[in-house]
């Protein structure tokens, strides 16, 4: 082991940290009390701590390559990750404490991974091993997730806030699953997916407001409109590939948003549409004093009115919508059209030589992906009760795409994990205040380094000879 090389490497990492941290952490602008201006506060102590942390973190990561260092480092980093929160230092140094905890946790996980890694001995390559792990996660965690999601609203730890967060995460899970059809299966890079989400939301809001249809009647219509827009967009652009397709879909997403922003008579412009009808349970509204002639939910079940009923109902609504999306996708993957999508992702020219119509195949992927976004949009509108173009900006498309890519293209469970990671976790780290996004970015970089093909990059064959031989009744 070359001690000097290790120290030099860690020192370099610390130096880079110093250069980055000095402007970003070292100086903070603060409002002068009385609001007459701002002054700069220096925080060189925090800079120093960051540099020291990075130095030791980098050193630890390098030492992990030596097997006799793994166990001590595992113990040390796990100790720091678990012990630091007990010291109550976060009252004084919340950011530093949290970053230290996260960094030690990462090192501990890495150390554990290397320590207990038996399959490495057999000499199989890393990607294969990860594929097996992903297959295992996919097989066993799916049902566990579903059961957990079903009982989630009734867990004692689930507050109203947490339940709202659950609804948000599930909305993104559904959007991720929908986009997965387009990006993960058909391999069409769509940067304007949020446009279909917007079409669904506005169709629901406008149809429900102007025609008085119920949520359940509007839901299919919203999906239909979104799918229709998918086809309209798809026709001209689907002959483009890769980057070009991405740019054109990005443009389409922005066009939809700008039209909604400016067509005031139709969409309410920047003011959006408020008073979007709330959903009802089999025609029974969630309302303390239902209008004449209707029975509200709590009256029917003879329970006290609680505002939480509606939240729980919304939670189950999005859960069902998301699961339907999932089952539909899993099923269609095993049908000729689903296989053609994947074949198209692999090699379009070979597809044409086999007589597969590339345009129609891509259009169906686009339309089906858009339809699910439309459903999700209708849900979003009924949940918020208010929609405006602001909710459908490009950043939403980027987040949904990030969920799909991070999850491992085409992996359904991966989308769930990525949605929890991207939407749920940032909420939990509110204590990091303005460093939240920095930590988030660091986590992204870490994932891309260690899991470059996504969290669960594993593809289950849509058909196996072994199974079909057994099933050959």
């Amino acid at each position, binding site marked *: 082991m070359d001690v000097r090389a290790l120290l030099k490497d860690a020192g370099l990492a610390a130096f880079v940290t110093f250069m980055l941290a000095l402007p970003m952490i070292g100086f903070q602008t603060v409002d002068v009390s009385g609001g007459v201006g701002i002054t700069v506060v220096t925080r060189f102590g925090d800079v120093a701590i960051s540099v020291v942390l990075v130095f030791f973190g980098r050193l630890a990561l390098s030492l992990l390559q030596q097997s006799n260092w793994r166990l001590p480092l595992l113990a040390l980093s796990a100790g720091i990750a678990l012990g630091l929160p007990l010291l109550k230092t976060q009252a004084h140094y919340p950011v530093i404490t949290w970053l230290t905890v996260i960094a030690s946790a990462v090192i501990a996980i890495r150390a554990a991974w290397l320590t207990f890694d038996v399959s490495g001995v057999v000499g199989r390559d890393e990607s294969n091993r990860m594929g097996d792990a992903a297959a295992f996660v996919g097989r066993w965690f799916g049902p566990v997730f579903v059961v957990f999601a079903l009982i989630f609203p009734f867990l004692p730890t689930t507050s109203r806030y947490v339940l709202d967060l659950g609804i948000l995460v599930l909305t993104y899970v559904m959007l991720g699953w929908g986009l997965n059809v387009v990006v993960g299966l058909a391999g069409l890079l769509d940067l304007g997916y949020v446009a279909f989400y917007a079409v669904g939301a506005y169709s629901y809001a406008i149809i429900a407001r102007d025609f008085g249809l119920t949520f359940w009647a509007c839901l299919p219509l919203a999906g239909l409109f979104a799918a229709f827009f998918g086809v309209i967009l798809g026709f001209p652009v689907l002959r483009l590939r890769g980057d070009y397709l991405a740019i054109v879909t990005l443009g389409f997403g922005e066009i939809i948003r700008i039209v909604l922003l400016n067509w005031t008579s139709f969409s309410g412009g920047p003011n959006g549409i408020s008073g979007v009808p709330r959903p009802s349970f089999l025609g029974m509204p969630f309302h303390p004093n239902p209008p004449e002639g209707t029975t509200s939910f709590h009256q029917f079940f003879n329970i006290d009115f609680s505002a939480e009923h509606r939240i729980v109902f919304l939670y189950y609504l999005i859960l069902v919508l998301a699961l339907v999306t999932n089952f539909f996708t899993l099923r269609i993957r095993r049908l000729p059209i689903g296989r053609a999508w994947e*074949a198209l992702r*692999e090699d379009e020219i070979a597809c044409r*030589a086999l007589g597969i119509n590339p345009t129609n195949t891509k259009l169906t992927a686009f339309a089906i992906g858009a339809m699910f976004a439309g459903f999700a949009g209708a849900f979003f509108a009924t949940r918020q009760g208010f929609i405006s173009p602001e909710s459908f900006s490009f950043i939403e498309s980027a987040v949904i795409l990030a969920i799909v890519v991070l999850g491992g293209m085409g992996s359904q469970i991966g989308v769930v994990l990525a949605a929890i990671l991207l939407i749920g976790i940032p909420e939990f780290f509110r204590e990091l205040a303005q460093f939240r996004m920095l930590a988030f970015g660091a986590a992204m970089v870490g994932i891309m380094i260690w899991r470059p093909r996504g969290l669960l990059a594993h593809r289950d064959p849509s058909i196996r000879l072994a199974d079909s031989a057994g099933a050959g009744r």
Partner: protein
Amino acid sequence: MTRTPLLEVDHLTMRFGGLIAVNDISFTAYDREITAIIGPNGAGKTTVFNCLTGFYNAPVGRLRLTGARGEFLLERMDGFRIAQKAGVARTFQNIRLFPRMTVLENLIVAQHNKLMAASGYTVAGLFGLRSYREAEREAIDLARSWLDRLGLTAQADWEAGNLPYGSQRRLEIARAMCTKPVLLCLDEPAAGLNPRESAELRELLTEIRDRHRIGVLLIEHDMSVVMGISDHIVVLDYGRLIADGTPAEVRSDPAVIRAYLGEEETDQIPPEVARDLRQEGRA
């Protein structure tokens, strides 16, 4: 045996800017025969295939296919329809499998159009109707018969990209055959194969001709394959057709020898020597 014309190529011409890649070529390929297209590198062989299978639109020429599925003018059809309707299947000079799909899936995707109709354009398939399940089982059976034939049954659930090179070449042929074509176009199927594999390939191709009773168009540089199994050979050089006849005729054609060995060589060189010279030059 009477020969029935399967594909008639008439005055086919294809230009890329100033380059005339295929220059006024006419020949006929017959049903249940192996027609080889040979010629030095850059002679325009692959370009002929690309015109034939709709990847390029030739500005001049007619491509008439008269097969079991009827008569088609290929130059007027879209790429995918040529495979779907007229029944022309092809392989590629650089293998184009679906590498991250399994071997079996590759063969099932090839039967897309039949399965798509059986799945009621997805609707019936979603509900798992019996008619669709039966069609899928038939598709698997067809795939399995090819896997058995190629000795790939044990690797059926592997990712196609993980197969050894020679197996990938054969799988691509099987995939093309799973579309149930009337004309199979193979672009250098023996490239990169060792002598044993190329002997197996010869056997496979004669079997396709004699048992599946379809026409085969074969682009190949490996003369042991070409001379061994072709019924009929077409020779191209710089986009022009320079010879058209049986292997024996082509082998002794002075124009062919000149094309392969260069202008200054005389035509007294016996074909066997010419062949050896050429192979040495490639090794």
